[in-house]
């Protein structure tokens, strides 16, 4: 069984800097106020390295990768 991950945002920490959406537009877009909207579901394998960069580069450390057990989990 392969490991699946999803991106999680700590909404209280998130300051809407928007870096994440620039690094990973395939999975992250910004709302009208500049805060990330993250696509639901686990991150495809080929995007995992970028997702890890998103987590490391967030200026306020609001993002994290979380292991998911089933595909039905929401990514919000």
């Amino acid at each position, binding site marked *: 069984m392969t490991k699946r991950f999803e991106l999680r945002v*700590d*909404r*209280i920490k998130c300051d809407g800097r928007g870096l994440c959406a620039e690094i990973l537009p395939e999975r992250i877009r910004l*709302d*009208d*106020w500049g*805060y990330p909207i993250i696509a639901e579901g686990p991150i495809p394998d080929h995007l995992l390295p970028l997702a890890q960069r998103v987590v490391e580069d967030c200026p306020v450390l609001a993002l994290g990768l979380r292991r998911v057990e089933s595909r039905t989990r*929401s990514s*919000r």
Partner: protein
Amino acid sequence: MNETRLLAGRDLAMGAEGIAEHVRRLGRLPAAGKSLIDLLARSGLTGRGGAAYPVGLKWRSVAAESHGSAVIVVNGAEGEPHSKKDRLLMTTRPHLILDGAFLAAAALRARQVILYIGEEHYAARQSMSRALAERTAEERRLVRIVAAPARYVAGNSSAAVHLINAGIATPTTTPPSSHERGVDGAPTLVQNVETLAHIAMIARIGQATGTVLITMAGGVNRPGVLEVKTGTTVGEAVALAGGAPEPAQAVLVGGYFGQWIEATQAWALPVDPEALRAHGLTLGCGVIGVLPASRCAVCEVTGIMRYLANESSAQCGPCFFGLRALADACTRIAQRGTDPNDLLRLQRWASEVRGRGGCHHPDGAVMFLQSALKTFAGEFSRHPAHVRRSA
């Protein structure tokens, strides 16, 4: 109605029931043990503060981590604008609530009980502290009273814990939830006062009371708190509140985090947390608001959206900016008349904001709005500009 209901006993207008009368009427507090948790789980009791979380589950989770360190927070913040039932219970049957709190303290091996009561609920605080003075020294030693700020989010369990820990009544990121890590990092049971009163009854009679406290608001002849049998219909509850002085347009079931239902459909709905959930609805904290046919639904919804936007704790962007933008768009429609672009924005923003806060404040607000956009679709799509008449 039988005598197992919460508000049985002396006339409510006579004020708080003292300890002697309380014990004479209901008997002493039964012993609490592990079996009480099983009994609560079997009773099907869910939290009456709004979230309807199963009580048995919450207690089990706190009990598993307690090791004698748990904290009980008695939640009497009651920040929902139209809700009055928690206040009524605190001012008239304080010992029932304290019974529930001490049962929880014994069953969960808690070292502290905190009465978290809305700072503006003077009578309730006075009644609770007077009742506390009548309890045993052993019980009193466990308790302290903390005032909850008069804000909508202050009743949220993580906000209650945050206030007690750090003096700030804003929600914190979950997980961990309060029952995992709460006051001083200890597993904490945050339980609404009505829920605790139900627990005190269940411990005595071995089953659920089969009643629920609701607050009737808006277009009824006698607004206020009712204790009704679970499953009473909304129409029957309106009749118990003296009927409606004019035909109703819609009913808001569940307060500001609830949903609007057209009056014709609302009348038959059961006042029952579980049955409502099966309809995709929630009883929330039990507010049932009746909107008279003569009132403008768009303006009513706009006022409530503005309130909810103002009550954002301003911690998360999607809630702080999103709710304000939603309230602004409602205001534009209400004042200048329908603009199709604003209608589209309302739909899009509402679905985008949902699920993107640290707490459920934005979720509750957009659920409320989405139900309004559906129930009042006609009103929203052709709302005229309201011309302000000069005074």
